[in-house]
């Protein structure tokens, strides 16, 4: 059942009584500077409520079901976080409020920064970047500024990115003008020390890695890899998308990483909100601290907090205002709810859940790299596809029919027909058992009656969507007259 667009509803003049009817705009502004028409629909508040309530009901979310989307860490979003962020003292605070009248907010930022630095073994963090990819860009700008200061700016032109890396890594490198050198994983699904030694050199700027990697495997040669990159004068970057696997159990700083980012909307329970807003703090080792973006929050001897907007070597600023502050409140609330020991337990249970699902799934779907995983693992439908024609995509769609969100599929690229499963620590054994049973039933059905899976999904409000048509005949907005579309 389709829901009308908001633009196809309502009647002109069906106004809600939010604002008084004031004077005329042309009393203040010359007519030529005013718009001719404002073609927005007028809807009653009740119709608006029903419209968006129905849209919400057509949206899968953590709150509606299990969401094992690999590398996205779809854990429960505690509601205390929302209540804390919504307090007037935070919500109504203007970014240009004087520091001495915003001490509580600055203290939140300061304490979050200190906690993250301790948890991940970095000298300092900046809360400036808005999301993970934004943080990668920030970190690479820091690296670039650092090498320029050392007089090696022209020489260091290459960023090394393993083939298991998130797509944002090479895309961020390109935005800083770096050449991307893609590194093949070895047959253990890891970056090998030999491969690193073969490519590092005087042109190496940064080696970007995530650990555990996107196969869910711990890079067990990481200290030697870091030493090799450092010996060549390069920097090590830690993509924190998978930080939920090691929070409180191991620290990127101890592994030799010089730069890193976190996705607070993954590891620290901030809601994803349908694709943002996120929050992507950047952490650095001591030599890189002067290059962090401004402003930074400082604490003076008297215990007062300040926003420091100047920094001689700072790369500049990355956004309109200081940070995605409301998310800093949520993340700090989560950290203080758990405490240090609680955070350690979070990652242990995340790893437990992933290994539990993996142990059950490998009975009926191959899991390449036969060893214990960390917070996520990959399974492959390649054999199933050869035998039955049922692909990873079809399994994903069949899971939707059974009330589960699909895993990440076709990523990482080096595993054919890949299903990347990350259960997170907030799911119960019963939920995991139910998911595994559904997956098992799908694989069994694929062998008996593949068409039943190839037809999936059938219970959803729409079927599979014609992506080619969407791209070839782009319809990206409503227009009053559909024929006028390009």
């Amino acid at each position, binding site marked *: 059942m389709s829901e009308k667009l908001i633009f196809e509803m309502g009647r002109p003049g069906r106004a809600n009584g939010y604002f008084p009817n004031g004077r005329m705009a042309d009393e203040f502004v010359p007519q030529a500077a005013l718009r001719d028409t404002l073609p927005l629909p*007028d809807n009653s508040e009740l119709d608006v409520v029903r419209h968006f309530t129905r849209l919400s009901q057509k949206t*899968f979310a953590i709150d509606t079901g299990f969401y094992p989307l690999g590398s996205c860490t779809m854990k429960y979003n505690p509601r205390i976080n929302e209540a804390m962020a919504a307090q007037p*003292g935070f919500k109504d605070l203007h970014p240009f*409020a004087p520091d001495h009248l915003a001490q509580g907010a600055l203290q939140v930022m300061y304490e979050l920064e200190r906690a993250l630095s301790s948890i991940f073994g970095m000298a300092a963090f900046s809360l400036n970047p808005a999301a993970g990819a934004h943080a990668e*860009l920030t970190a690479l700008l820091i690296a670039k500024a650092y090498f320029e200061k050392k007089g090696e700016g022209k020489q260091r032109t290459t960023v090394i990115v393993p083939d298991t890396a998130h*797509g944002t890594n090479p895309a961020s490198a390109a935005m800083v003008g770096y050449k991307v050198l893609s590194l093949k994983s070895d047959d253990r699904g890891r970056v090998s020390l030999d491969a690193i030694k073969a490519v590092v050199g005087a042109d190496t700027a940064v080696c970007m890695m995530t650990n555990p990697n996107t196969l869910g495997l711990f890079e067990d040669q990481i200290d030697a890899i870091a030493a090799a990159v450092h010996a060549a004068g390069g920097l090590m970057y830690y993509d924190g998308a998978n930080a939920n696997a090691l929070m409180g159990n191991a620290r990127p700083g101890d592994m030799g990483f010089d730069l890193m980012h976190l996705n607070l909307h993954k590891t620290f329970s901030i809601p994803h909100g349908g694709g943002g807003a996120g929050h992507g703090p950047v952490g650095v080792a001591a030599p890189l601290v002067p290059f962090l973006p401004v402003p930074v929050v400082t604490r003076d001897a008297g215990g007062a907090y300040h926003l420091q907007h100047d920094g001689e070597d700072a790369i500049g600023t990355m956004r309109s205002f200081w940070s995605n502050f409301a998310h800093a409140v949520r993340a700090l609330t989560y950290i203080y709810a758990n405490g240090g020991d609680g955070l350690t337990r979070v990652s242990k249970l995340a790893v437990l859940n992933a290994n539990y699902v993996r142990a059950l799934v490998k009975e009926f779907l191959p899991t390449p790299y036969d060893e214990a995983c*960390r917070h996520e693992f990959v399974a492959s439908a390649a054999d199933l596809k050869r035998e039955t024609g049922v692909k990873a995509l079809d399994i994903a769609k069949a899971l939707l029919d059974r009330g589960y*969100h699909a895993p990440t599929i076709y990523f990482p690229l080096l595993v054919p027909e890949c299903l990347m499963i990350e259960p997170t620590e907030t799911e119960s054994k019963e939920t995991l058992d139910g998911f595994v049973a559904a997956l098992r039933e799908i694989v069994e059905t694929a062998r008996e009656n593949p068409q039943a899976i190839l037809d999936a999904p059938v219970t959803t409000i729409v079927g599979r969507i014609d992506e080619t048509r969407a791209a070839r005949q782009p*319809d990206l907005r409503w227009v009053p007259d559909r024929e006028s579309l390009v």
Partner: protein
Amino acid sequence: MYSPHTDSDIEAMLAVIGSPSLEDLVRVPDAVALRGPLEVPPGLPEIELGAKIAGYAKRNAAVGYTSFLGAGAYRHYCPPVVMSLAMRGEFLTAYTPYQAEVSQGYLQAIYEWQTYVCLLTGLDIANASVYDGATALAEGAIMAVNATGRRAVLVSSAVHPNYRAVLRTYARGLDLDVEELPVDANGATDFSNLEARLADKRFAAVIVQSPNFFGCINTPGEAARAAVRSTGTVSIGVVAEAMSLGVLATPASWGAQIAVGEAQSFGNPLAYGGPYVGFIAATKDHMRRIPGRLVGRSLDNRGNEAFTLTLQAREQHIRREKATSNICTNQAHCALVATIYLAAVGETGLRRAAVLNLERTNALAERVCAIDGYSRAFSTPVFNEVVIRVPAALGAGRVLAELERRSILGGVALDRWYPDLGDCILMNATELTTPEDIDVLCAALRDIVSVATESPAVHV
């Protein structure tokens, strides 16, 4: 916290895995193992946690002050219905709608957002949002660079200083030149020299903001637009206060091929600077260069209309280093808030709210300028901000400090970005600014002048 595992669950699960302990599962090589405890205090039960965090919120005294702060972040009325809908768990806890069949609701909401941005800016297409106004500008500039192959951009000095700062940060990464267009005596961008500066076709884009940072409604005239067009330069229009689009001419109508800006004003709280919601709109010839997510309408295999993420060949997860941008996460939920806000207020409400901004700001300017020693720095018509010149003997810093002693945040001093405007304060009024607020401000300003006159060395 938040994990449902009982001890017996953990035992049973470890048995299935065949692992002796949780510690065994997370073990890392000794060389990189964690040494010592984390410097994080012990966890708190929720009843204590709430009280602790509430304590921080209470130490932000600024929220109790009468405020005239604007400068890119605005206090507006948000009907309670907006957050009541946006905070539904289905919206709040969804991820990027990769699985379209179970995300039709959110996809439709984004499609509606894209449409609202197009209707407000007058342009053909819009994306699903970017981080904020400043990053929208930087991404817009990169679109122009990619469209023209030119490596420099020309930005008006009347564009928000933080936006220009972000543009320069991004430009450093890509080795782009950023040059500025000066501001004239009326607080407007000086276009008089534009034709000559564009003549060598060095600039990918000319970037102009209206209302500009001084609140002035300031769009390029016909000559400037002709110079931009004839040199193949991309015209980028910045709107840092989306509320202005409720009454002001669209960026498309003043020649913008790309419009970028900030839509925080549509229902999103101030929240000490974020998260906010940047938008990018463009003419359709820029469709394949626009960064970030795009939602399109297509058909499903049952012949029904259905929404999906589309044109993903532009994006990082497909193109990696050849993507149009590295953006992945955007500001979907903030854009949803804005969409619900616009749906609720509609044409009638948005127009009324915008007119109230004009009305209150003009009243503010009139009342303040009636006080001896205070005047408008620029005569150009404004939307909801105005630059007030204070008595030179006092200076902006002292006036603001004196206002603060009277529980008033009088605005933003401009000297940190514009040394020539040392006696100037940028003051904002919105539909939430009451006549009583203006009374209080004016009484204080009069008081400050008289105190200063009597005792020039008054302590601030």
